[in-house]
């Protein structure tokens, strides 16, 4: 990968990586740090990584960094404040509720769903990024979606 290709990757994928980090509700600063770390690794390994594989390479690193953050958080878990939707604002705030509930499902399921819905990766690609089997990806995504549906149905009811 040449310098201009690396710079192209920064312009193209930094927003997506940042959004991916932010979607895991890890905080703005941590998300920024993760993006910077991802590109630092990419720069160091630019001779090995081709431009066509830069995106999945970056998301792989980002995913593992996010998992590291979650591992650290488990030690001092904070109490989550949830906003319960009402019938009046359900449709209006649906997007917000979905994202809120997304944070309540396991991180691995969340990551798989985010990679599928936002980045459009196939199950195979997600398996590669998350370093898990295809079947595990399938299970994670389906479980996550079902859990999301259940929680939102519960909130709606």
């Amino acid at each position, binding site marked *: 990968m040449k*310098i*201009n290709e*690396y*710079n192209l990757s*920064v*312009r193209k994928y*930094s*927003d997506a*990586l*940042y*959004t991916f980090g*932010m*979607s895991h509700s890890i905080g703005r600063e941590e*998300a*920024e740090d993760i*993006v*910077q770390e991802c*590109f630092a690794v990419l*720069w160091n390994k630019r001779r090995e990584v081709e431009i066509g594989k830069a995106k999945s390479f970056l998301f792989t690193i980002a995913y593992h960094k996010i998992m590291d953050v979650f591992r650290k958080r488990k030690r001092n878990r904070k109490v989550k404040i949830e906003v319960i939707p009402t019938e009046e604002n359900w449709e209006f705030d649906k*997007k917000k509720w*979905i*994202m809120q509930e*997304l944070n309540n499902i396991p991180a691995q399921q969340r990551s798989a*769903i*985010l990679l*599928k*819905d*936002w980045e459009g990766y*196939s*199950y195979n690609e997600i398996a590669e990024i998350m370093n898990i089997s295809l079947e595990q990806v*399938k299970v994670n*995504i*389906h479980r996550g*979606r*079902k859990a*999301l*549906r259940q929680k*939102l149905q519960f909130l709606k009811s």
Partner: protein
Amino acid sequence: MIDHTNIEDYILSYIDGELDTVQSRALEDYLQIHPEYKDLVEEFSTYKLPKIEHTFDKKDDLLKKKKKISAPWKPLSIAAAVLILFGCAYYVIHYESSQSHRSREIHLAENTPQNTFAPDPVSVMKRDTTVTSKGVATHKATTAAHRSNQTTAAPKIKKTKKDPMPKTRRILTENSRDVTNIAEMRFAQLQPSSIPLTTKDYTSIVPRAHYISSSEMKASVADNQDIQKPVMRIVAYNFNKLLKAYDIISSDSSDYSITINLNKIINL
């Protein structure tokens, strides 16, 4: 095989576009038979994550600038240019000094007054060619030709102000014709017909201004003394050496005896 236990998974895979055409058709057929699951498809579709975009503001910090590659040829080209400049300067200075030196020689040769005490060069030449060997005669002829060329074909070049020649060398150069004339005259007087002299012998005996290196000669010239005496002395000294070589005088002669011998020759 699709049934009520795995229909949700099939629907989710269908929504995600992970089913192939055969599986998709099988699901669609199953939904035709079981329309109650059609709502499930719509429901799951609504739970697909809405696209949210955050903008990363620190892109500029991540961008890398292309390093300006310092061309390896650049310092080399500078060094080469400097060398060429020095070379040119050296050539110009050296060329000018050599030109001025040459022009001065030509100028002096043109302006040098005729030697008053020297014998007529023509007569000397005649006498020499009769007395000396063939080699000596040819040498003298070429010297004369060279001298005449210098005087006739000399281009007029302006004299430079700076005089890089040392004083001794300058005086000798100025009096080069006198030195040669004196030497030739003395040689003619000393030349015994019995000794067959070669060109080498002649050049070793007759000192020419440019080859004189005797300290005595230099000292005399430096003091602006008459150059006749030291020239004769050198001729006599060289001649004496020659006589010694031809065993005309004893090789065991001491410096003192040689000096006496020399004085006798000088006072001929």
